[in-house]
C-alpha cells in the first residue's frame, strides 16, 4: 500500500528532481507479476503530451494491469513510472480515471449525479461533504456527456451505454490533464461510442493527454493518433501511422488473428487489414 500512503516528505523529495518532464507518461523497466507469473515484462514506453493514445493487445496481454500500475493501483515487481516528470502520488490531482464498467456493481443504491460527484471526492479530501458547487459541477459534466436528464435516475436503471457515460462524466469533473480509460467502448451502443470519441477528441484538442485501453482494432486508425501494441511486452509504440501494420499486430496477436483480403477502403493500411477473432472475454 506504499503507493497510497503519500507522506508529505516523500512527495517533496520526488518533486525536486524531475525525470523526463516533457513526457506525459514515462514508464521504465516495468515488470508486474501475479502469483510469480509475469503479467507485464520489462515494459518501457513513453507517451508525449497532447495525444490520444490507444493501448491494444490480445486478452491477457496486461492492458488493464499496465494502466493500473501507472496509477499505483497495482504494485509493480520492478521498474518505475513518472507522469510529467513526477511520480503518480505527486500528480494525482492531474489524473482522471475511468475503470472498466464491469468493475462495479451497478445495483448499488445510488443515482447518476451521486456517482459523478464521486469524481470530486479526491479534491474534497477527508470529512468534507459535497455541497452545492459540487452538485453544479457534476451536473455540468452530465450535460457534457448528454446525460443531464438522467441525473436522479437509479444507476441500475441505466443502459450499458448510459452507465459508461456516467463513468466518463465522473472522470470529466476531475478536471485532469491526463485521462486513463479502461475499455470505455466495450459493450456500448454506436451513439455512445461516437459521443465518447467526440468528447475524448475535444479533451485532446485542449492539449490534454488521453490514454485508452481499446479492444476494437478496426477503429484504431480513425480514433487515435498514438498507439501502444502490447502483449506482456511492448511490441511496438509510436504514432499510429508508423506502428499500425500487420507485422506488428501479428507479433502481438499471433495465432489469434485472421488476415483478411486487402480491401479498397483500407488503401492507407501499410499491409493488410487484420481482424482479431473474438476471445473468451
Amino acid at each position, binding site marked *: *500500500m506504499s503507493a*497510497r*500512503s*503519500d507522506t508529505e516528505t516523500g512527495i517533496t523529495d520526488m518533486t525536486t528532481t524531475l525525470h523526463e518532464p516533457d513526457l506525459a507518461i514515462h514508464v521504465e523497466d516495468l515488470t508486474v507479476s501475479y*502469483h510469480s507469473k509475469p503479467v507485464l515484462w520489462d515494459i518501457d514506453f513513453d507517451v508525449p503530451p497532447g495525444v490520444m493514445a490507444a493501448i491494444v493487445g490480445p486478452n491477457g496481454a496486461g492492458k488493464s494491469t499496465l494502466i*493500473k500500475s501507472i*496509477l*499505483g*493501483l497495482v504494485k509493480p515487481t520492478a521498474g518505475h513510472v513518472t507522469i510529467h516528470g513526477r511520480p503518480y*502520488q505527486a500528480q*494525482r490531482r492531474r*489524473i482522471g*480515471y475511468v*475503470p472498466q464498467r464491469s*468493475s*462495479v*456493481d451497478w445495483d*448499488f*443504491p*445510488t*443515482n447518476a449525479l*451521486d*456517482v459523478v460527484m*464521486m469524481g470530486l*471526492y*479526491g479534491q*474534497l479530501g*477527508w*470529512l*468534507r*461533504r*459535497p455541497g452545492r458547487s459540487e452538485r453544479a459541477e457534476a451536473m455540468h459534466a452530465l450535460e457534457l456527456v448528454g446525460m443531464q436528464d438522467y441525473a436522479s435516475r*437509479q444507476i441500475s436503471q441505466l443502459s450499458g451505454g448510459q452507465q459508461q457515460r456516467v463513468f466518463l462524466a*465522473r472522470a470529466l469533473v476531475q478536471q485532469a490533464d491526463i485521462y486513463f480509460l479502461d475499455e470505455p467502448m466495450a459493450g456500448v451502443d454506436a451513439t455512445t461510442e461516437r459521443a465518447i470519441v467526440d468528447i475524448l477528441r475535444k479533451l485532446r484538442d485542449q492539449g490534454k493527454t488521453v490514454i485508452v485501453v481499446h479492444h476494437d482494432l478496426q477503429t484504431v486508425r480513425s480514433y487515435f493518433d498514438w498507439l501502444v501494441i502490447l502483449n506482456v511486452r511492448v511490441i511496438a509504440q509510436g504514432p499510429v501511422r508508423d506502428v499500425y501494420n500487420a507485422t506488428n499486430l501479428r507479433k502481438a496477436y499471433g495465432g489469434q488473428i485472421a488476415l483478411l483480403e486487402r480491401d479498397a477502403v483500407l488503401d492507407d493500411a501499410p499491409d493488410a487489414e487484420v481482424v482479431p477473432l473474438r476471445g473468451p472475454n
Partner: protein
Amino acid sequence: MLGFLSDYTIQNVALGAALLGVISGVLGCFAVLRKQSLLGDTLSHAALPGVCLGFIIAGARQIGFILAGALVTGALAALLMLLLTRNSRLKTDAGLGIALSVFFALGVVLLTFIQSTGNASQGGLDSFLFGQAAAILRSDLWVMGVVTAVALSIVSLLWKEFKLVSFDPVFAASLGYPVLVLEVALTVMIALAVVVGLQMVGVVLMAAMVIAPAAAARQWSGRLETMVILSALIGMASGISGALVSALGPGLATGPLIVLAASAAVAVSLLFAPGRGLLWEIIRRARNRRNLRGKRVLTTLYRLAAHHHDSGYPSEQGMVDAYHGVGTTPVLKRLQARGLVEPVTHIPETTPHWTLTQAGIEEAESILTNLGKQES
C-alpha cells in the same frame, strides 16, 4: 394488560435489542453492499473461542474479558480471511468459510474443555451460543449504547469515504484514499456490532442481524442514505418486537424471536417492495401480457379491415376468437373502454361484430410501424 412493559427486565431487554438492531442494521448495509454478507457470520462464529479464552483468563464469567476476547478472535478471523484471499487463489467466500469453521471448531473445543473442568462458575457460558437476553444488565446496556454511538459517529463522519469504497474501491484508490484502512475500519465495526449482539442472540444467529435488516431495506430504497436509515429502523423494530413477544410467555427465547422478526421483514420486502418486489414483478408481467394481447387483437381487426378494403369493416367476433385460439371478449371490452373499438350489429347475423374507431385505426397503425422498425 400492557403492565408487563414496566417490567425492569423487559425494559432492559427491549432497549438492548433496539440498540443491537440499530448498530447491526447500519453496519450490515455496508457488509451486504460489499458482497460480504458472510462476514457477519464468520465474525460471530469466530467470537466463540474469544468468549472462552476471556473466561479462562478471567477465571469467571466477566463480561469485559469475554467481549474483549470475542473482539480479538473476531479480528484474527478477519485477518486470516484477508491473508488467505490476498496470498492464495482462494476467493472471498472460500476464505470466509475457512475462517468461520476453523475458529468455530476451536471455540467448541475450548467450550467442552471448560465444561469438563467442572468449574462451577462456567454455568451460562454456552448461553453465548444462542444468546440469553434476560441475563442482560443495565450496565451492559451502557456498554452497548457507547459502542453504538461510537460506530454511528464514525459512519456519519466517514460517510462519503465508506460510500465510495463500497461502490468503487479501485476508483477510491486512484483518488488516493487508503482503501485497505477503510475496509478494515468497516470490518472492525461489524465485529463490534457482533460483540454487542453476542449476549442477545448468540454467535449462531448473529449473522442474520447483520444481513436481514439491510437486505430488507435495500428493497425499499434507491439511495444509500435512505437504505441505511431504513435498515436501522427495521433492525430496531425487529429487536423491540422480538423482545416484547418473548415477554408474552415463558420459554420463548428472545434472540431467535428477534431474528425471526427481522426475517419476516425480509420476506415482506422481497414480496411487496415497489419496483423490486416479487409481487410487483408479477403485476408488471401480467400487465405486459394483457397489453400484448390487446395489441394483437387490435392489429387482427386492422388486418381484417385492410383485407376487405373497408376501414369500417365489421369483424365477426367468432373469427377473431378462432384466430387467437381463445375467447377475446375481455380483451375487446378493454379495447372498447379505451375507445379503440366499438361493437356493431351486422344484419341479418346475431353474433357480435366489432369495428375499429378512428383512434383504433391510428393505434393499430402505430403498433404495426413500430413492429416494422424493430424487425428491420
